[in-house]
């Protein structure tokens, strides 16, 4: 028994000290019932002494009742938990097992290999550092092997061991092993798993599991347990980007106001300047408590409470970051989703999102494609069923301070909750959506329309242009009834930004209609085209580092949504110039409304065409009661809070 041997060597005090320094490694095991996965884990537990004598006794009894190994102890039975499942002979959920060696403690998430249980595998993978994918040497690479590797990659597992098991049944053939290795490497190359290891083994005989195998002298690498004990995982932590999602505000007394949460990534020190999102307020860190004790600094994974040097508004669901390194606040998010419910996901449906401590309503606006997990090909889909994986776009009622999952496994992850049943129905990973990728999307769309465009290699990127100009480009989209004050506000804002050293361009309906849109009238179709041209222009200007202030009636939510999609949701802010029709008519000195009322002109928004006010604008501005200066000030505050201007 390992603990006993170690104890003899170092004594109890040495042991206690060593134990407190042990690292934790979370492992996912994937494979089907027949690959010998449960046997492998049972073997790891047994050979590293994670199995006690009384459990072993119970196991021997179970072996004769349920076992499939005859006289030998069926280690698989250690793993299958619930009684009903034991009788069925399969594991149908995620089960967690624990064992430790002198160096590390291991948590093993065991998940089944059945096709319909993608859900369980994703669950186990979400918290794992490393995955062991089992392959039966006799069967080689199967569709499920690809599926497992894909899910591991999707869920951000950085270390994968391909355990080629049952080598005893292929006469320990190196050729068999090498053929499997070659086949795996081919498809693993298309996934993003940085560290892959191949180990030939026989779990049933314990070869290359804990001890070396005598039977495969051609294998020079370490046995599985050695690898698990030494694989370097400390580098997987993100210590760069400070992200502290606020779980709770602690107010035990009037003098103490602490913000409690677990650091998702980055470092936090006393005296650091932080910014709270979405408010954008800044403060200095006064105290840092780690697990209740005051410290100088804290790092990823620590449960902290911090206090600040001044009172700023922070509540549960907010995110603490650094002023020069904060995520974009997004209403619209692109993500990969693993669907976990019988009721399918379809565009248009609404759910609740839970991301860090934030819970808010979201609407899925688009199902871009689903992925066939066996071939890894994407295909069009109307909906996403149980255990299917697809890419969606969704819009959230509150802005989400999110990082791409590939950069942050905490702030980039979310679950979707059914609002009626409260069930957890989906798990999502936020995608990195750079402006370049958006252009690619558009090119794909243009491609469908018959134009073939491809980006020129080595061309200057929008990021480089923005850096040259020295400002963050964005588009403020002002929508509202005719004469609601959009253009006046747009020009006043341009002047203010100009004085702050920012370059911006005002696009408004009237000036565009004199040139770019001079061929267009006011039919529904022409209006949509007008808005499309305006959005394309805004995109181009943004791509070239310019700030755009766009003032367009853009009466329908659909038009504004398409503008948001063209410009790119992360740099598009919708502002509603809110003025009643009555006020607009009163303010109109050109006789525009009067002519509409008399029927002289048609298709006038508010008169004979409906205006759909935005349901969740970034700002709703009172353009009747409030002064232009006051509205400009509100817009500036918004831009500062989004860190778009300094």
């Amino acid at each position, binding site marked *: *028994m390992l603990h*006993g041997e170690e*104890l003899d060597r170092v004594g*109890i*005090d040495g042991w*206690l000290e060593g*134990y*407190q*320094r042990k*690292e*934790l490694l979370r492992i996912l095991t994937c494979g089907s019932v027949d690959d010998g996965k449960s046997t492998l884990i049972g073997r790891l537990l047994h050979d590293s002494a994670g199995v*006690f004598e*009384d*459990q072993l006794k119970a196991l021997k009894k179970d072996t004769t009742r349920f076992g499939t190994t005859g006289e030998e102890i069926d280690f698989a039975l250690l793993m299958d*938990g*619930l*009684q009903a499942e034991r009788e069925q002979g399969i594991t149908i*959920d*995620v089960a*967690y*097992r624990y064992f*430790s060696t002198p160096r*590390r*403690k291991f*948590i093993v998430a065991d998940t089944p290999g059945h096709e319909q249980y993608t*859900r*369980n595998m*994703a*669950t186990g993978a*979400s*918290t794992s550092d490393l995955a062991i994918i089992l392959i039966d040497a006799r069967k080689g690479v199967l569709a499920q092997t690809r599926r497992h590797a894909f899910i591991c990659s999707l869920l951000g597992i950085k270390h994968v061991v391909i355990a080629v098991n049952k080598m005893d049944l292929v006469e320990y053939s190196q050729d068999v092993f090498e053929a499997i290795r070659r086949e795996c490497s081919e498809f693993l190359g298309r996934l993003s798993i940085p560290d892959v290891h191949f180990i030939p083994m026989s779990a049933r005989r314990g070869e290359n599991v804990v001890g070396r195998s005598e039977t495969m002298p051609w294998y020079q690498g370490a046995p599985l347990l050695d690898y698990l004990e030494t694989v370097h995982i400390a580098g997987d932590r993100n*210590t760069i980007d400070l992200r502290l999602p606020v*779980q*709770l505000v*602690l107010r*035990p*007394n009037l003098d103490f106001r602490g913000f*409690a949460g*677990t650091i998702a990534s980055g*470092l936090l020190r006393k005296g650091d300047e932080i910014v709270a999102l979405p408010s954008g307020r800044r403060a200095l860190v006064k105290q840092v*408590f780690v*697990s209740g*004790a005051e410290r*100088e*600094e804290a*790092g*990823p994974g*620590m*449960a902290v*409470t911090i206090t600040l040097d001044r009172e700023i508004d922070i509540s549960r669901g907010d995110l603490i970051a650094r002023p020069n390194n904060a995520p974009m606040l997004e209403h619209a998010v692109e993500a990969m989703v693993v669907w*976990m419910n019988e009721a399918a996901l379809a565009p248009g449906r609404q759910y*609740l999102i*839970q*991301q860090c*401590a934030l819970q808010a309503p979201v609407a899925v606006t688009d199902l871009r494609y689903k992925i066939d997990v066996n071939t890894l090909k994407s295909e069009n889909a109307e909906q996403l069923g149980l255990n299917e994986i697809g890419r969606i776009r969704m819009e959230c009622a509150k802005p989400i301070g999110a990082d791409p999952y590939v950069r942050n496994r*905490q702030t980039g992850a979310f*679950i979707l*909750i059914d609002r009626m049943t*409260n069930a*957890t129905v989906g798990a999502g990973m936020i995608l990195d959506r750079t402006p370049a990728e958006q252009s690619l999307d558009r090119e794909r769309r243009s491609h469908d329309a018959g134009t073939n465009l491809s980006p020129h290699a080595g061309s200057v990127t929008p990021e480089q242009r923005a850096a040259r100009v020295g400002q963050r480009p964005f588009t403020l989209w002002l929508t509202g009834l005719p004469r609601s004050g959009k253009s006046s506000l747009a020009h006043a804002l341009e002047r203010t930004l100009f004085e702050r050293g920012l370059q911006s361009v005002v696009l408004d309906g009237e000036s565009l209609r004199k040139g770019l849109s001079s061929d267009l009238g006011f039919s529904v179709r022409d209006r949509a085209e007008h808005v499309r041209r305006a959005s394309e222009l805004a995109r181009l200007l943004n791509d070239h580092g310019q700030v755009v202030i766009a003032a367009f009636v853009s009466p329908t939510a659909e038009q504004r949504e398409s503008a948001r999609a063209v410009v790119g949701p992360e740099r598009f802010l919708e502002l509603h110039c809110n003025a009643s029709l009555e006020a607009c008519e009163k303010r109109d000195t050109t006789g525009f409304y009067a002519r509409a009322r008399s029927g002289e002109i048609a298709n006038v928004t508010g008169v004979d065409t409906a205006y759909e006010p935005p349901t969740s604008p970034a700002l709703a501005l009172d353009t009747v009661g409030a002064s232009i200066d006051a509205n400009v000030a509100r817009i500036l505050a918004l831009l500062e809070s989004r860190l778009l201007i300094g």
Partner: protein
Amino acid sequence: MTTLHLSHLEQLEAEGIQIIREVVAQFEKPVMLFSIGKDSLAMLRLAEKAFAPGKLPFPLLHVNTTFKFKEMISFRNDFVKSRGHTLIEWINQEGVQSGITPFNAGTQRYTHVMKTEALKQALSHYGFDAAFGGARRDEEKSRAKERVFSFRDRFHTWDPKNQRPELWNLYNGRVAKGESIRVFPLSNWTELDVWLYVYKEQIPVVPLYFAKPRPVVNRNGTWIMVDDERMPLEPGETPEMRSVRFRTLGCYPLTGAVDSQATNLREVLEEMLRSRTSERQGRVIDYDEAGSMEQKKKEGYF
């Protein structure tokens, strides 16, 4: 410079704190089950840390079967008082009036009435919508798949087939009226982790965990302590004084002691490291029938 790398124990601690805070944020009326054992004490320490320098934002609940060791009750009273926590004690009065004991009713029926039923009564009486328990996944097979947030319907029952997927550290605590959850902040701890934590944090524990000469009788190969006069002795049975300790604590007639000379935590740990049996062996409750824990959990047991 403090170390910014977390050991496994520190990671488990941080995970537990995050879970406890999440429950307080998402639920209206949580309660923490306090069984006086080492797991409860470790869990309570996590809760204290989660809300430091403030007090716990929830009470502790002890379901007293009336057959707990005397030393447990006195420890409980002193401990709770010294830490300034609020404790609710619940005894199933119907059970007491019916005169049920582990001796006359059999362990299954007794546990059901005085533990499971009592717990459900207490949760319903106070309207608690979340209850923390110190159970760990490594304790028993059916616990290995238990969620951290374990969903219970309005009858407090558990449906192993209908639990929510739990990914990352995102816990969906939304419940309909009358429904509740059981929460296990120590899910990923092992028995050894708990002891190491008690050692590292110098958490006081009930002295029954340490060896001392105690009056015991041998029943079915297990040492049962004669803690008071309610324990009926079999013909010819006389309690003998043996140096024993307990690996788990519960109702004295149902909890077996082990021979031991370990009188402090360091010695207990050494003894445990060299031992080859799991802690639940001392518990009579699991051995009634195969899958018995699973059955009890379905009925509302923790």
